[in-house]
């Protein structure tokens, strides 16, 4: 695999292949222009058709559409359910109505203190969804950036970044959560989201790095490099879309994992406090 020390411009490539030995200024400009716009235009057109293709394929898949509906419904309930349901999570009902199994007036029943369990569930759900989505966003972004740089540049950068990942793996999230939740005053759900992001991004980083290590050797990356495309552009426009599959999978797993981790921390008394759990 030939490594280009200095990225050749289009002009150099043409000169090397011998197709065009003397370029007039006009032709030279034209090549510059095609470099600047041609690739871009081609890419966006392709992206649009690809997007519509994905959408069409998605809506043909029955299970996927049903899942989408359920997901949207749950997110909707999580964020607006508390406003729609006529009892508030903080409302305490009289003793006659407390600690009862589900019945007509309280579909989820009431607890010992007389809170309506459905209202509590809706409140907790909102926090869980909030935390999970924020964690997925943060840790995926961080993991993708670190993993992409590490896998694309290799060498010493890769080594340093991967040792950083190892270091994060070596520190248990529980210890981090215990210390931070005591030291940051008024630690709300966002503090928990940050703690969870800090511990989960390493998984994404490793996976993205692995993808980049193999993708960077592919022909289309070589072609892009031959055209003189900048590193940043190759990483984000050429390689990243190809690694999207596994990134999306890990991101969805992070959403699920973050909710579980959040409940586990609450169980240990480190997470969000009632009534937000």
């Amino acid at each position, binding site marked *: 695999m030939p490594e280009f020390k200095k990225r050749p411009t289009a002009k150099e490539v043409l000169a090397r292949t011998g197709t065009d030995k003397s370029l007039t200024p006009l032709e030279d400009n034209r090549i510059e222009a095609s470099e600047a716009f041609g690739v871009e235009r081609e890419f966006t057109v392709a992206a649009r058709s690809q997007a519509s293709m994905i959408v069409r394929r998605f809506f043909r898949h029955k299970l996927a559409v049903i899942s989408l509906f359920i997901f949207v419904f749950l997110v909707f309930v999580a964020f607006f359910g508390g406003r729609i349901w006529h009892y508030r999570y903080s409302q305490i009902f009289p003793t006659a109505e407390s600690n009862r199994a589900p019945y007509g007036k309280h579909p989820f029943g009431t607890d010992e203190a007389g809170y309506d369990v459905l209202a509590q569930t809706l409140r907790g759900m909102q926090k869980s969804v909030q935390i999970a989505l924020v964690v997925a966003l943060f840790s995926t972004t961080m993991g993708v950036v670190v993993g992409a740089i590490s896998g694309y540049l290799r060498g010493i950068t890769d080594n340093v970044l991967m*040792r950083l990942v*190892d*270091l994060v*793996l*070596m*520190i*248990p999230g*529980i*210890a*981090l959560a*215990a*210390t931070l939740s*005591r*030291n940051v005053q008024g630690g709300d759900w966002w503090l928990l989201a940050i703690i969870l992001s800090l511990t989960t991004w390493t998984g994404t980083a490793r996976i993205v790095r692995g993808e980049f290590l193999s993708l960077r050797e592919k022909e289309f990356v070589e072609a892009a490099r031959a055209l003189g495309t900048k590193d940043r552009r190759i990483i984000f426009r050429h390689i990243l879309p190809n690694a999207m599959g596994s990134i999306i999978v890990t991101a969805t797993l992070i959403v*699920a994992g973050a909710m*579980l981790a959040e*409940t*586990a921390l609450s*169980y*240990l*008394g*480190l997470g969000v406090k009632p009534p937000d759990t």
Partner: protein
Amino acid sequence: MLAFIFRRLLIAIPMIFIASILVFLLAANAGDPLEDLRGRPNSQVAMAARKQQLNLDKTVPERYVIWVKGAIRGDFGKDSGGREILPQVSNAILLTLRLVLIAVLLSVVLGVGVGVISAVRQYSGFDYFSTFMAFLFFAMPVFWFAILLREFAAIELNNWLRKPSFSAVFSVVIGLLFGLVGWFVAGGENVKLKRKAIFAAGGLVVGFVFMLGVSSWVDGKSYPKFLKIAGSSTTNIKGPFFFDRLGDYVKYMVLPTVTLAVISFAVYSRFQRASMLETLSSDYVRTARSKGISHRRVIFRHAFRTALIPVATQIALDFGAVIGGAIITENIFAWKGMGSLLRNSIIKDIDPNMAMAVLIVTAISIVIFNIIADIAYAYLDPRIRVA
């Protein structure tokens, strides 16, 4: 290979050093180590004594230097109660290992096995069933599953074991289950119905014979309180040999082991299924097939090894982390392993030296298992060269 291991170990030393600084900062700032003494009678004296003992009047860097000097000599200091830390931690490690080893073994064997079968027979009934179960277990928080297991499965089972017997319906269900297993074992979609029927009938017969045997064996026996819900062993039991204690250990181990195993089983089976599917569709597997190598050989000799890599990483990381304690499982089943040490030293009360010892052991085990994972890569996939 040796050079690789040597170099990784060499890098591991500064890594552990840096990790120890970070972890020390966490442990030192986790809270007030004197908190449990405040408000007690004579608290001034006790607080002064503990301050003296934990060097709390010194700054954090000074305390770190003292800690490192001790740790290099193998002395992890004393906990806030004045007891030596080292014997406590080594006890806890043994206990945690006892809990974790079998759980990991069980979940790896089951997870990898189920993953491979459901990949080879993709979209079969078995595949859908195992996917459903994996997601069910994956979606359950650990503490929820553990409490369910303790409150329902264990207590019901104990009540049943007091006077065990099988009803006719139960026997029929078990027989049918064996028949169903026979049906799945017979093969996937391309297998003739006759073969499936024969296997199913065979399973049915085996199931009934099995039930007959078990119920005649169990008849008239009684095992009151067989499964222990809390603790790791009966306190006064001290047989001269390990095997004398083994029976006692097993009673305590069942529930936490099942809890840990079931949840990692879910993860491993999904990983294994995905990577097996990917390997099965790769070029070299197709080449092997086209050369006329038998189906079984292609799966086990060619695809299986490579497909183990992602699971191997996951297992190594999990194992390394779990030595640091399965906090929630230990808490629910009242085990005094690493998890409960960590919980007692950083969440319930603050005990910097103890927390530090647990955390550094965890860090070291994670580093070691990371290296083991890398070595496993090279062994499993000859295309990977460690260098």
